[in-house]
């Protein structure tokens, strides 16, 4: 990998580059991770379990080894007896083998790895590896996985338990007993696939001195480095992780994916080894947690919320990944952005014989937002209230206590609800339409936190030619993070953003960052970049005023400083460096969440959960064909609070794009299992929205904080989770039917219309 930051994405500065970026993406010239080629690479293909749960009894790779071009076949049992490779690994629990050796726990689990001169040869040979598996009883459903006698995936976790937490704020049970109106319902959402356009890809190469280099499509360069170091028993500094821009991530590229496999392969054949997933492999590599959420709400007759009890079961799939900790995050967000005096939430994650589940844009929140926002409308119907009014009455305001016991501030929900409603002309009657078409409007709000604790570091380098480059490990994956970093640095240096470059990621060169996830980068890395820019500016000022004590601080403009000497003199950055005999000047900056942030009471989950709460609202208008059940979203309007806005156009793109992304999980997306097999592991059988499915009118409102010292808020996920309940609420407004399990297929809608029992009173 080249170290020259100017090679990404072109030699042109940013603004011209922004246009060129889009153009390059469209014509296929943009350099994605999947385009990276390392000279001399061999190719790996995984042999995957075709059995959802079983014991490996034999693996015969003799025939595979006869395929021309095959260099090595590595099996789980081979790795098991290799003392230089950790038997199992995991972010939260050491429960996952690099290659399965004793048991297989889901269809698609890697059992062996074939390395060959070409990908085709590896793929052909993989089909010839004979894996004998004695089948065990399987469990796919997370509710069944918790029942006595359910098949057990991991002996260490006999109840298939994978993350258990409780949040206790006040006495919800007592308050519920006193409530004038109580509503209770259960809401289900299925596993979904992130379906990034770019499949997962990685290349590993071992250097002769035992260092490991990896080029990978990850959202988490530093965690991947740490995990590789753990698995192969290396010091972290002996592992180098490089990341090119991704063709979409959405959470699917956060955990260790292919990196350990290619490292194993490369070590076996002493060459770089590359692996690029086929689309069907993408489907068995990551997933959204399926979930069941039962929510009970107590309220006064006037609509004041009094108590909420939430019970959540998440389907973690076959291995823990982040589920034991992320279940808590989902639980904390599950009461929704409401001021409720008494709240009780209980969550459990369950291991099942399905694809291991991990974060999915709006991580762990889509499932609970689906529940609390459907429930809000159902409660409004019980109370005979306008659901908008019910929200306005109860949404969090400054000073309100949230369920974690935190006093909330910067709460903008009333404005967000109002803006979303106005965006779809909430009070206007639907226009005339054909008798078989029914129109309705729906709304939903969401509260999301960002990962805490976390840390981001940035370096800004001024080189001898006067060029300014931000070195950051924030991954560019289409969200525009690099453009924002350039803009933030440029503002502090008072130079055009066009003239600031942003490096690609190389853990030997770009400093630490927790992950690119959780809508955290603009706040955390953005702050680090601003501090690095301030630091660089200070160092430039020192150079400019060196030997002239008492000189006023210089002014900066367009890559030059003006110093009063006493006559104002303009000095270009490169000349300052040359004059001081310096090749470069580096400013550094760090963001670290405050001590204690993110630490919660283990029994009650009270405490300061997050450094930033993300606030969003969505309103939609739908048209339901009551003869077919087909739902068309006519209008969608998203509202998001951005804090100090870096670039309003990019915020709008996230806000509006999030709704179109979210539309898929509402109307059509579901990973379908039959007997433990994924039945739709391709983009024909698993559908995501096309541009023809996008609402005819998509709008957004961006609320900002004019205070120049305010911090930016993450906006990458704020309109994804609310889409499902907003659309379900609109369908109910149009037709009177309430559907509580996603996706909202035409068949479910039509069945509900045909079966009046499902109608709400």
């Amino acid at each position: 990998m080249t170290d020259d930051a100017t090679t990404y994405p072109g030699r042109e500065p940013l603004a011209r580059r922004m246009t060129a970026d889009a153009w390059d993406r469209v014509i296929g010239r943009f350099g994605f991770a999947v385009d990276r080629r390392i000279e001399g690479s061999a190719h790996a293909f995984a042999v995957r379990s075709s059995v959802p749960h079983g014991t490996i009894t034999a693996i015969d790779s003799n025939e595979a080894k006869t395929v021309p071009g095959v260099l090595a076949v590595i099996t789980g049992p081979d790795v098991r007896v290799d003392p230089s490779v950790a038997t199992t690994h995991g972010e939260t629990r050491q429960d996952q083998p690099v290659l399965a050796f004793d048991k297989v726990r889901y269809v698609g689990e890697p059992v062996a790895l074939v390395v060959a001169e070409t990908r085709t040869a590896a793929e052909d040979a993989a089909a010839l590896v004979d894996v004998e598996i004695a089948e065990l009883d399987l469990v796919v459903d997370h509710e069944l996985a918790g029942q006595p006698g359910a098949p057990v995936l991991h002996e260490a976790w006999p109840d298939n338990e994978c993350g258990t937490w409780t949040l206790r704020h006040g006495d919800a049970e007592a308050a519920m007993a006193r409530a004038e109106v109580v509503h209770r319902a259960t809401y289900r959402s299925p596993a979904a696939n992130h379906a990034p356009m770019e499949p997962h890809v990685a290349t590993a190469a071992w250097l002769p001195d035992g260092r490991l280099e990896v080029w990978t499509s990850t959202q988490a360069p530093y965690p991947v480095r740490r995990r590789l170091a753990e698995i192969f028993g290396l010091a972290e500094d002996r592992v180098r992780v490089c990341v090119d821009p991704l063709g979409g991530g959405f959470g699917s590229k956060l955990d260790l994916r292919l990196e350990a496999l290619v490292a194993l392969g490369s070590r076996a054949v002493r060459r770089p080894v590359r692996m690029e997933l086929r689309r069907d492999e993408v489907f068995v590599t990551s997933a959204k947690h399926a979930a069941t959420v039962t929510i009970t709400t107590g309220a006064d007759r006037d609509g004041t919320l009094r108590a909420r009890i939430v019970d959540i079961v998440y389907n973690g799939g076959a291995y823990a990944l982040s589920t034991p900790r992320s279940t808590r995050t989902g639980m904390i967000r599950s009461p929704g952005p409401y001021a409720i005096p008494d709240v009780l939430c209980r969550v459990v994650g369950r291991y099942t014989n399905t694809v291991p589940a991990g974060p999915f844009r709006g991580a762990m929140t889509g499932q609970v937002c689906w529940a609390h926002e459907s429930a809000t409308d159902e409660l409004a119907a019980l109370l005979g209230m306008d659901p908008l009014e019910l929200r306005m009455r109860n949404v969090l305001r400054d000073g309100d206590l949230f369920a974690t016991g935190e006093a909330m501030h910067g709460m903008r929900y009333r404005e967000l609800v109002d803006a979303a409603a106005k965006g779809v002309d909430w009070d206007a009657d639907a226009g005339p339409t054909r008798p078989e078409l029914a129109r309705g409007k729906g709304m939903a709000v969401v509260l999301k936190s960002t990962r805490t604790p976390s840390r981001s570091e940035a370096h800004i380098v001024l080189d001898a030619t006067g060029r300014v480059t931000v070195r950051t490990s924030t991954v560019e994956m289409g969200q525009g993070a690099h453009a924002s970093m350039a803009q933030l640095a440029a503002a502090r240096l008072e130079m055009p953003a066009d003239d600031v470059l942003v490096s690609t990621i190389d853990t030997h060169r770009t400093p630490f960052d927790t992950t690119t996830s959780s809508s955290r980068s603009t706040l955390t890395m953005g702050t680090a970049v601003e501090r690095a820019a301030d630091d660089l500016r200070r160092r430039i000022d020192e150079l400019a005023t060196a030997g002239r004590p008492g000189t006023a601080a210089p002014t900066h403009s367009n890559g030059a400083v003006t110093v009063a000497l006493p006559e104002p003199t303009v000095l270009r950055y490169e000349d300052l460096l040359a004059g001081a005999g310096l090749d470069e000047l580096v400013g550094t900056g760090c963001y670290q969440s405050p001590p204690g942030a993110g630490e919660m009471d283990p029994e009650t989950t009270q405490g300061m959960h997050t450094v930033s709460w993300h606030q969003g609202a969505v309103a939609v208008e739908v048209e339901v064909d009551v003869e077919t059940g087909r739902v068309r979203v006519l209008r969608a309007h998203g509202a998001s609070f951005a804090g100090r806005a870096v670039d309003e156009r990019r915020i709008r793109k996230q806000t509006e794009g999030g709704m179109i992304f979210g539309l898929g999980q509402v109307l059509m997306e579901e990973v379908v299992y039959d007997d433990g097999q994924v039945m739709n592991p391709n983009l024909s059988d698993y559908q995501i929205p096309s541009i023809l499915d996008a609402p005819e009118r998509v709008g957004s409102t961006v609320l900002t904080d004019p205070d120049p010292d305010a911090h930016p808020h993450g906006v990458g996920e704020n309109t994804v989770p609310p889409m499902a309940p907003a659309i379900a609420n609109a369908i109910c407004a149009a037709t009177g039917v309430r559907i509580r399990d996603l996706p909202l297929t035409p068949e479910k809608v039509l069945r509900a219309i045909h079966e009046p029992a499902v109608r709400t009173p």
Partner: protein
Amino acid sequence: MVTFVRCATAADAVAAVRDGDGTAKFVGGGTALVLLLQMRLVQVDTLVGVRTIGDVPGWSGIEQRGNVLWIGGGVTLAEVAGSALVRGYAPSLARAASVVGNVRVRNAATLAGNIAEADYASDPPAVLVSLDASVVVHDGARQRAVLARDVFTDFYTTSLDESDLVIGVAVPLVDGSVSAYRKFASRSMEDRPCVGVAVSARFEDGAVGALEVVIGAVSGTPQRWPEITERAWGRRLAAPLMATIADRYADAVDPIADIRGSAWYRREMVRVNVRRALEEVAASADD
């Protein structure tokens, strides 16, 4: 290793597939075949490219030949959808061709390839049956025409030999005929149909002179029940008659269940979409 051969004549192409003895396949736009190859549902040693064929008159063209509309074996779905001739004489076929896959697929896929693939969940087959179209094939020595309704025999299966090359489609042109195609997709707008309904009709003095209703995507082959549609002959295509035909089709159909809908749902979608397609042709006849 797969060999790709480009053929200049129909006879060469047929010979190449025949010589492959089950390991060679014709490829036109390649949109379906490449997917099947990727999924390893089809294994081939030789791909016989037919886009370069130069000796079949009208191979790449759409033309009127007397009372027949000819669509050559090299014609893409996008060309079918955009053709003024097809839109004028067989609007249902233009419509069906315009909703297959997405624009990238339609720009590459050919109508002939669509027929040869015989995907039960595609749009053109039902329309070709409803229009009483013939599929013209070349077997290396001579040409023959096979009625579309006799071509499709099961899921992904035709009555054609593996080495029969589809060189064109002949759609009979009938004075005063009207047609419509309704694709009903249950997921993305770019999904394959959950149910497709093709209707072709001719009206005489306001009464039905002929009527054909063909259902696609509900089972292995396009489905038609002439005994139901023939009862409409001589009658006005009014709302009660349309509802009756729709109900009878819904009763007659034995739908599959798949990821796009259960059997129950497909039956209901046959009912709704047959009625709506009949309403469309009735309205176009009134114009």
